[in-house]
């Protein structure tokens, strides 16, 4: 019974837990409910992934109405892979939040805060699971609205969180509305909202203006959420001023979910064989990706706030995603998915480490990191490992990402791009070097009584750090999973019922 309805339970359980959290009298109970829900989702996503690998595609018809008339949840290797990423990072952040959240959120606000976390979480899971384009928009809005509020909760320590959240709201809403406009155009052409069905009906079409514009609006709309380079304006402030847990959660998952939506649109709904899409991939994504990698990394070099530095680094990393996508081959797609997973792990662990520092010092400027190498050895060594991974040192997951990206570039014969990928990762050396140097080679300010963060925060942090190393030393698991996911993305018509076939 549960196995059969797991696809929907996975998303609905956190959503149903949200109102429960409102009524929790004590914050701890809300925390327990939320953590239980995320752990359930984590277990569920592993089971779903196994099922999807076995069956090829799991199609769950909501309300029993067959697609394309009804809404379906359509899980293949690709989105169940993303489910794992989301629920893994979500679970880790929740456990971490037990001590971190009370430090930043008033206790009377906490039950509602957990409600928002749950809604955000289930929204992301929903976006990932659904096979219906409009349903995707609805979940996207649940996830977005709650993340605006979550970012604004940083106002407890800095009012700039409010303006950050407001900008995020404006741009996020414009993005979502763009998505709807694009969807409308596609609907006019195809008369359907089911993504697999759209794919079938678009496959035969060649370039009409409507198709092009619809495509463009969808891509720009998702791009705003993904913070693709020129559309990234909301991200640095939102990440900097949000509470630590929220930043870690968003950095680890929200861009990944948006990336998944982008991949789904690019590869499954539209197909990379469409001539205009190939043009966009090569002449738009490639230069944008390269610009993002370099410009954002260089901006990161000059940041004095570590959270903001990491935020810019995230924008640079979304450049790598674009590069991987622009290769438009299975290698590039695999590399993107591998990097998606790896980046989720390492960026979350970095933000969690910064969260530990904020917990103890109340600040996250580079200056406040001085001398922490001795005072908070566990936190800082996790930070160092995360940083090394971002640089791409072997035996970390970052190396695996870089390896496959470069390999995919070489497969295409794009020499300069391969070179740019490694050069970009090198910039990470300089901005992480600054922080690490401050932590280890500069004396801590006098009479600072900073001590190591509590175990309840270190344990989830180190869980991520260890997986960062373990999956870096043995990448068999991530890579084969990502390859299966990439193949699923490239096979849009697999597992369709007869009446929907091409």
């Amino acid at each position, binding site marked *: 019974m549960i196995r059969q309805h797991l696809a929907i339970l996975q998303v609905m359980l956190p*959503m149903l837990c*949200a*109102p429960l959290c409102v009524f929790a009298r004590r914050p701890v109970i809300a925390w327990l409910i939320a953590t239980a829900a995320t752990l359930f989702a984590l277990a569920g996503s592993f089971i779903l992934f196994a099922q999807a690998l076995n069956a090829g595609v799991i199609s769950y018809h*909501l*309300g029993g*109405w067959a697609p*394309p*008339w*009804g*809404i379906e949840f359509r899980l293949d290797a690709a989105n169940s892979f993303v489910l794992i990423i989301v629920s893994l990072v979500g679970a880790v952040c929740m456990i971490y939040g037990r001590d971190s*959240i*009370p*430090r*930043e*959120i*008033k*206790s*009377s*606000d*906490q039950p*509602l805060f957990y*409600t*928002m976390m749950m*809604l955000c979480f*289930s*929204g992301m899971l*929903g976006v990932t699971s659904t096979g219906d384009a*409009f*349903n995707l928009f*609805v*979940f996207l*809005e*649940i996830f977005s*609205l*709650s993340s*605006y*509020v979550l970012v*604004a*909760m940083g106002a*407890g*320590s*800095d*009012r700039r969180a409010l303006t950050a959240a407001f900008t995020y709201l404006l741009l996020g809403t414009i993005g979502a509305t763009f998505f709807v*406009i694009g969807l409308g*155009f596609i*609907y*006019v*052409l*195809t*008369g*359907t909202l089911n993504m697999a069905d759209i794919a079938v*009906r678009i496959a035969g079409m060649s370039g*009409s*203006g*409507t*198709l*092009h*514009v619809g495509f463009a*609006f969808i891509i720009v709309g998702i791009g705003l959420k993904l913070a693709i380079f020129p559309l990234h304006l909301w991200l640095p402030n939102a990440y900097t001023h949000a509470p630590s847990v929220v930043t870690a959660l968003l950095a680890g998952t929200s861009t990944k979910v948006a990336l998944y939506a982008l991949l789904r649109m690019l590869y499954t709904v539209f197909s990379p064989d469409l001539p205009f899409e190939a043009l966009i991939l090569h002449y738009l994504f490639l230069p944008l990706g390269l610009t993002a990698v370099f410009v954002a990394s260089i901006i990161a070099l000059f940041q004095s706030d570590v959270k903001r530095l990491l935020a810019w680094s995230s924008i640079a990393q979304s450049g790598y995603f674009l590069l991987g996508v622009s290769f438009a081959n299975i290698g590039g797609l695999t590399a993107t998915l591998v990097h998606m997973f790896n980046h989720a792990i390492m960026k979350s662990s970095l933000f969690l480490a910064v969260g530990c520092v904020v917990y103890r010092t*109340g600040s996250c400027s580079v200056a406040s990191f001085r001398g922490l190498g001795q005072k908070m050895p566990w936190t800082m060594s996790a930070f160092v490992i995360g940083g090394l991974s971002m640089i791409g040192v072997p035996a970390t997951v970052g190396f695996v990402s870089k390896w496959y990206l470069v390999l995919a570039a070489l497969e295409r014969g794009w020499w300069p791009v391969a070179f740019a990928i490694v050069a970009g990762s090198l910039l990470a050396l300089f901005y992480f070097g600054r922080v690490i140097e401050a932590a280890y080679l500069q004396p801590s300010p006098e009479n600072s009584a900073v001590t190591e963060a509590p175990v309840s925060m270190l344990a989830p942090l180190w869980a991520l750090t260890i997986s960062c190393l373990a999956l870096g030393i043995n990448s068999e698991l991530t890579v084969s999973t990502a390859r299966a996911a990439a193949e699923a993305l490239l096979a849009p018509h697999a597992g369709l019922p007869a009446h929907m076939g091409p």
Partner: protein
Amino acid sequence: MIIRIQNLFPVVMLSGAFSLLSAALFVSMDAVDVAFTEAAVGAGIATVLYLSAISLTGAIEKPPSGSRAIPLLVMTGLAAMLLYGTADMPAYGDANAPAHIHLMPEYITGTRTQIGIPNIVSSILASYRGFDTLGETGVIFTAGAGVLLLLRRGRPRRELANQGGNE
């Protein structure tokens, strides 16, 4: 006008009027349900929200500063793209547009035979796409809880480094 006027009160009134106007347009395009909702939600609830927000924040807008070139540029670019996109669309009211022939007949007959309520919009809303409606409820809940969370400290006070959560 909405752009120009700097006192926010008439602006809100105008935007409410705009909502009503658009509701009327919806009726003329056969979307009665949408019109009804737009009138109630867009013209009604939203206006109330605006008015209460204005009462809390003040109604006079400062004259805009800064260059208008960039917004205008974005605007024209957007308009050009949209017009390019709509140029290839089926004409207004074209009964043979793909959107009207692909799934629609099944929805209509389905409503007639399986659901049994006359309003097709309601039937799709409640059954075929019932999950969207559930999601919609989720959105409302999110908004409600979010507003509650944001505004629960009702009185204005300076929010500076008030650390220390567990008091």
